[in-house]
């Protein structure tokens, strides 16, 4: 019985660790830019898009300025 409990606890711990690792890895890579226009529309550009490739550099520079200060 204690052995089964230990196995179950180990499995549950591994599942929780896997979820945390997945979310952390996914969150670290998901760069994107959301632009809201005055006509009420919203466009979301994923980091792989050509538009995001133009928009992300100034945003990264602004963040780097704050991190450096």
């Amino acid at each position, binding site marked *: 019985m204690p052995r089964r409990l230990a196995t179950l606890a180990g499995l549950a711990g591994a599942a929780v660790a896997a979820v945390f690792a997945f979310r952390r890895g996914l969150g670290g890579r998901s760069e994107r*830019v959301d632009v809201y226009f*005055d006509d009420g529309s919203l466009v979301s550009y994923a980091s792989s898009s050509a538009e995001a490739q133009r*928009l992300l550099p100034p945003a990264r520079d602004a963040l780097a*300025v704050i991190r450096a200060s």
Partner: protein
Amino acid sequence: MCLLASPAMDVAQALADLLEVGPQLEAAAVFRGAEVLGAVGVDDEGAGRIVGDAGRLLDLAGELRGDSVRATQIRASLAGGGVYVVREAEGDRAVVALAARGATPGLVFYDLKRCLAAVAEEPPKPRRRRTTKKEEEPGDAA
């Protein structure tokens, strides 16, 4: 001590309030074009740079649409945090803020709009005292 109300002081107060209500915000600056109207959480040189970057973001975002529609809000979600820009709908004043990763975008935008609105509000004009002209009495005319 005498404190005079000035636009610069209003911006500083609005920015101080902004960082107080939004603990997830690390720095912010209010600007018009390339002119920095006020900044908090960053030195003057850094404020000039983040304002320049925010201006480029607004310009580039506007170019992406190609029509007369203006970009009024931008959120760049990066690995190290978020960059938020909000521009007045009926003006050219804007605010840029840097937030920690995990900040709630809706709350950040709300706080930035409130900050811009506080800056945009003009101080109340002093009331002019209405004076009534005294009617001249016939005896005074000599």
